[in-house]
C-alpha cells in the first residue's frame, strides 16, 4: 500500500506516554488510511498524502555533493519544524576513485511529526546518483521502498566498475522496489543550457536538481536553500544562479512529470517539543557552543590547543571563528603540543581544552597524567572513531572508554562525561567544564563520530538558565606555619571538594613550583616519602570518587525485571528499541549513564534491583567490564563494532532475545 512505513514500531509510542494504551501502528498511521488514488484517474492535481515520518538516504560519489545535499534538506526540514535525526556516512578518502564502491558517500535523514530518536534503520527513499551508490546501499533498502536513480550514470562503464553485468534498471532485480528512473544529469544540463557553462560545470549542479525534486516530494520550504546557495557562491554569482536554477528545475520536474504522482506531507512535530526556540544542531557544533558558554559562565578566557584529526577537527574550525568571544585557538605541531599548550594556558588561568580522537588521546596520555599530578582544570574532548590504530576515521565507535578510564601510567584517575545525543553535547560540555573547574582536574568528554556529525533539533537555552561556573583564584596565603608565618601552600586542599587552590602567575606572594614528581601534601615540594606517596595517590583518587554527579534516573513504567543500561550515543537507538518492546507488551527498564567516572552513587543499587542487566555498546563490552568489576553484577553485553550506530529494530530483537534467554 505504501512504502513509507517500513518499521512502524518506533513511532508507535510517544515518549510522553509510557505504558499508555496504544493502538497498533497501522491504525494510527494516517498514510495507511489515506484514500488511494490511481494517478491515472486523477484530474491533474496531484495527490498529497500525510505521513508521520520518512527516512531518506541521499547516496552518490564523494564528489557528488551528497553531504551538502543532505545538510540542505536537513536545514529545510528543521526550519519546517519536524523532529529529525541525521546520519552522514562518508569515506575517509577525500576523493576515492570516482564511481567505485569505496567512493560512495551518503547522508540519511529521518524526520517526523513526532519525537524520534534515531536516523532510522532503513530508508523509505533512496536517491542513488550512480550505480556504485545503488550497489552500496540497496541492501539497506526494504522492499517496496522508493528508489530515485540517475539513469544517466547507468551506462556500461560505470556499471561494469561496480560489477553490474546487466543494468539493474532493466534486468528485473529492482522489481520489488518502486523505481523512479530520472536522467538527473541530462535534465540538469538542459536546465542550465542558457548559462554558458561547460558540460562539466553544469553537471555539478545535479545534486541541487535532486534536492529540488525531493523538496517538492516532501513539501519542504525552499527559501533558505536559495539564499544559502547565493551566499555560498557569492563570489561566483553565475554558479550561484545555476545552482538555484537546477534546484528549481528539480522542484518543477516533480510537480509536472507523471512519474511522481504523489507528494507527501509530514506535519511539524510541535507536540513533541516543549515550548521554546529551536534550531538544528550537530554534535560538534553543540559541543563547541558548550565550551564557549562554559568559558563565559566561568568568566575565563577559552583556550583550545589542538591538532587536526577526524572527526574532531570541526570543533577547532568552529572555535577559531569566535575570536570575538576572546577564544584563543592554537593549531599545534602535534597532538602532544596541542594538550601541552592547553595545560600551559590552564596554569595561566584559562578554561583550557584539547580536542582529538582516539589516536590523539594515545599521544596525549603522558600530558593527561601530568595534568592529574598538577591538578589543573583541563578538558580532553575525544570524538571517538573506529579503532585500533588509524582504524575507521570517519566511522563511529565507543571503544575509547577504557582508554579514558585507565590509559595512563600510575594511578591517574580522570572523570569521564559522555553526551547522549547531538544536542546533548552542549550540556555535557558545560558539565565537564563544571567538574574540571570545581575539582581542578582534567576531565574526559567522550563524544563519537555519530554524535559529532549527526544533527537534531535543539532547544536553544536562555543564557540565564546556564549554570554559574565562576571560580575563585587564590589571592593570598592559605596556611600558617608553627612560628606564625603566613605562607601559600599550593597543595592545601578544600576540605569539601579536595580541590587544590588555583594560583595563577601574576599573583604576588604566591610564587610556587609544581611538577610531575610526587609532591608533599600541602607544601607541594618534591617528596619521595613512601607514606606521603600513598596518601597522595589515595587523595587524588578520593577527589575524583567524591565528585558530585546526579543519581541515575531509571525509566521503568511497568516494573520490569530486565534493565537495559547504555552510555553515550547509543541513547537514541536504545530508547527506540525500548519503545518497540513496550509497544509489543514486553516490559523493560531503561537507564543511560552520562557519568562514567565517577559513576552515580545509586548505580550499584539500581543494578541489583534487576534480575538481568543488558549493556549494549559499540565496543566489545567496556562498560560491562567496569560494571562487573565494580558491582559484581552479571552484566550482559550486546556489542556491535561495524562503525555504524545500532539499528533500533535489530537492538529490539536482541533485547527481546536477552530477556527471554
Amino acid at each position: 500500500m505504501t512504502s513509507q512505513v517500513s518499521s512502524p514500531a518506533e513511532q508507535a509510542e510517544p515518549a510522553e506516554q509510557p505504558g499508555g494504551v496504544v493502538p497498533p501502528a497501522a491504525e494510527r498511521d494516517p498514510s495507511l488510511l489515506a484514500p488511494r488514488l490511481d494517478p491515472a484517474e486523477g484530474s491533474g492535481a496531484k495527490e498529497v498524502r500525510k505521513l508521520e515520518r520518512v527516512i531518506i538516504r541521499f547516496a552518490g560519489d564523494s564528489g557528488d555533493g551528497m553531504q551538502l545535499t543532505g545538510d540542505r534538506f536537513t536545514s529545510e526540514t528543521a526550519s519546517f519544524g519536524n523532529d529529525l535525526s541525521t546520519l552522514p556516512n562518508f569515506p575517509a578518502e577525500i576523493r576515492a576513485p570516482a564511481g567505485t564502491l569505496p567512493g560512495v558517500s551518503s547522508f540519511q535523514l529521518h524526520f517526523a511529526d513526532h519525537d524520534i530518536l534515531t536516523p532510522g534503520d532503513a530508508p523509505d527513499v533512496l536517491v542513488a546518483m550512480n550505480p556504485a551508490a545503488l550497489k552500496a546501499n540497496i541492501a539497506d533498502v526494504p522492499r517496496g521502498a522508493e528508489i530515485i536513480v540517475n539513469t544517466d550514470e547507468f551506462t556500461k562503464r560505470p556499471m561494469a566498475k561496480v560489477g553490474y553485468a546487466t543494468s539493474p534498471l532493466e534486468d528485473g532485480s529492482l522489481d520489488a522496489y518502486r523505481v523512479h528512473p530520472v536522467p538527473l544529469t541530462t535534465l540538469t544540463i538542459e536546465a542550465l543550457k542558457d548559462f554558458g557553462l561547460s558540460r562539466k560545470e553544469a553537471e555539478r549542479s545535479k545534486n541541487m536538481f535532486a534536492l529540488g525534486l525531493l523538496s517538492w516530494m516532501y513539501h519542504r520550504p525552499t527559501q533558505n536553500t536559495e539564499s544559502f546557495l547565493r551566499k555560498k557562491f557569492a563570489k561566483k554569482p553565475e554558479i550561484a544562479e545555476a545552482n538555484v536554477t537546477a534546484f528549481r528545475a528539480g522542484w518543477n520536474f516533480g510537480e509536472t512529470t507523471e512519474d511522481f504522482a504523489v507528494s507527501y506531507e509530514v506535519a511539524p512535530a510541535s507536540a513533541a517539543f516543549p515550548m521554546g526556540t529551536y534550531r538544528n544542531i550537530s554534535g560538534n557544533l553543540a559541543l563547541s557552543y558548550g565550551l564557549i558558554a562554559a568559558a563565559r559562565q566561568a568568566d575565563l578566557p577559552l583556550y583550545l590547543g589542538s591538532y587536526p584529526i577526524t572527526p574532531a577537527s570541526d570543533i577547532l574550525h568552529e572555535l577559531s571563528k569566535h575570536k570575538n568571544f576572546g577564544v584563543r585557538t592554537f593549531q599545534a605541531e602535534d597532538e602532544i603540543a596541542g594538550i601541552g599548550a592547553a595545560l600551559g594556558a590552564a596554569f595561566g588561568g584559562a578554561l583550557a581544552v584539547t580536542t582529538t580522537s582516539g589516536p590523539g588521546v594515545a599521544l596525549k596520555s603522558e600530558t593527561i597524567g601530568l595534568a592529574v599530578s598538577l591538578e589543573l582544570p583541563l578538558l580532553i574532548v575525544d570524538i571517538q572513531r573506529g579503532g585500533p590504530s588509524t582504524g575507521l576515521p570517519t566511522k563511529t565507535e565507543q571503544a575509547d572508554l577504557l582508554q579514558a578510564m585507565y590509559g595512563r601510567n600510575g594511578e591517574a584517575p580522570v572523570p569521564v562525561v559522555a553526551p547522549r545525543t547531538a544536542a546533548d553535547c552542549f550540556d555535557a560540555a558545560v558539565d565537564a567544564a563544571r567538574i574540571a573547574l570545581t575539582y581542578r582536574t582534567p576531565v574526559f568528554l567522550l563524544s563519537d563520530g555519530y554524535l559529532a556529525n549527526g544533527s537534531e533539533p535543539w532547544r536553544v537555552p536562555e543564557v540565564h538558565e546556564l549554570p554559574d561556573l565562576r571560580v575563585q583564584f587564590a589571592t593570598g596565603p592559605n596556611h600558617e606555619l608553627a612560628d606564625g608565618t603566613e605562607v601559600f601552600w599550593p597543595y592545601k586542599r578544600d576540605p569539601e571538594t579536595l580541590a587544590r587552590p588555583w594560583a595563577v602567575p601574576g599573583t604576588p606572594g604566591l610564587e610556587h613550583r609544581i611538577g610531575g614528581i610526587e609532591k608533599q601534601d600541602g607544601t607541594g615540594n618534591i617528596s619521595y616519602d613512601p607514606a606521603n606517596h600513598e596518601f597522595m595517590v589515595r587523595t587524588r583518587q578520593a577527589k575524583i570518587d567524591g565528585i558530585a554527579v546526579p543519581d541515575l534516573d531509571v525509566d521503568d513504567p511497568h516494573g520490569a525485571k530486565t534493565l537495559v543500561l547504555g552510555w553515550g550515543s547509543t541513547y537514541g537507538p536504545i530508547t527506540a528499541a525500548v519503545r518497540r518492546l513496550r509497544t509489543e507488551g514486553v516490559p523493560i527498564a531503561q537507564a543511560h549513564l552520562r557519568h562514567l567516572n565517577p559513576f552515580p552513587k545509586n548505580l550499584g543499587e539500581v543494578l541489583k534491583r534487576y534480575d538481568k542487566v543488558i549493556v549494549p555498546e559499540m565496543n566489545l563490552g567496556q562498560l560491562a567490564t567496569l560494571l562487573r568489576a565494580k558491582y559484581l553484577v552479571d552484566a550482559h553485553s550486546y556489542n556491535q563494532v561495524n562503525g555504524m550506530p545500532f539499528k533500533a529494530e535489530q537492538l529490539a530483537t536482541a533485547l527481546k532475545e536477552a530477556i527471554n534467554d
Partner: protein
Amino acid sequence: MTEALKLVPKAEAKQSMKDFKSDQEVRWCPGCGDYAILAAVQGFMPELGLAKENIVFVSGIGCSSRFPYYMNTYGMHSIHGRAPAIATGLATSRQDLSVWVVTGDGDALSIGGNHLIHALRRNVNLKILLFNNRIYGLTKGQYSPTSEVGKITKSTPMGSLDAPFNPVSLAIGAEASFVARTVDSDRKHLTDVLRQAAEHPGTALVEIYQNCNIFNDGAFEALKDKEQAQEAVIRLEHGHPIRFGTDNTKGVIRDRATGDLRVVEVTPENEADILVHDAHTASPTTAFALSRLADPDTLHHTPIGVFRSTERPVYDTLMADQLETAVEQKGKGDLAALLGGNDTWTVVG
C-alpha cells in the same frame, strides 16, 4: 624597556639575587655546571626589574629541568621534551608574563625536538635556555643527540653511530629570530647573552655549554682552558670584525669561490676582508655559516655570543591582535545571539 617586556609589570621595589632564590635545597651533583648557570640567572634577574610573580620558568625532564624549583618565581617542572609546548600555551594566553624554558640537549633536541623547532618558527615570546652537556646525565650516562660520533657510553660500548646535531645550526634552520651560544663558566659572557635574550621580542634560543662532571667531564675543556681557548673560541660581537687567537692573529673571511666562511691567519693583505659580524641581518646565511665553523670533535673554532638577533612578528602579539580585530569587526561576542544562530523556529505551548 624593550618591546619584549613592555606588557610585563615592573617590580615595585629594587630586587636582589636573594629575591630569586627559592627555599629549596639545590640537588645537582657537586661541581655540576648547572650551579654556575643558576647563580648567573638569579644574579641577572634583578637587572630586568620585572615583578617576579610575572616570571615563569617551565622545564621538561633531565638534570637541568630541576631548575624551576630553585627559582622563587612561578614554575612548572613538566614532562620530557614538552616544555616549549606548555610554555607556548602559557605565553600565548598571558602576554603579561615573562616565560623562560629550561631544557637540556636530550630534552630539547631528542624527545622534544619537534616542539623546539615549531616554537622557534612561530616566534613565540619564550626565552629558551638549552643546557648542552653532550650526554644524558639523569639516566646515568648514555650518549645524547649532541654527543660526538664514536662516543663510548653505557649504551654505546663500541662507540655511538649517530651524527650529532649542532643546536645553533638547527635553530637557525628552524627560522629562529634569536640564537646565541655561551658557556657555563664564563659568568660575564653568560649574563650578557641572557640580557640580550631577555630583551629580544620573540623566541630566543641560548645554547649554554655546560659541564657534566660525572658523566662527561671536560667536554668543553678546549673552550675553558686558558691556553687552548685562545685558539678555540671565536667571540662574536655585533659590528666587530670576527678575530680571535693569541694576539687576534686569526680571523674569519668569506671564500670568494664558494661563498663559505673559513678561518685564516690575518695578514695586512687580507685584514680588510675579515668578516664584520652582523647579528641583525635578515638573512640567516652568514649566521648559519658561522655555526658550521666549529669542529664537532675538537670544538676548535667554536663561535660564542649572539649569532643572530633579528626582529620579526611575535606569535603571541599576532594572536592577541586577531582577537582585537575580531571584536572590531564583529563586536564583542554575544552568547545569546551565537546560540540562537540564524535559523530558528519557535514552539509555543
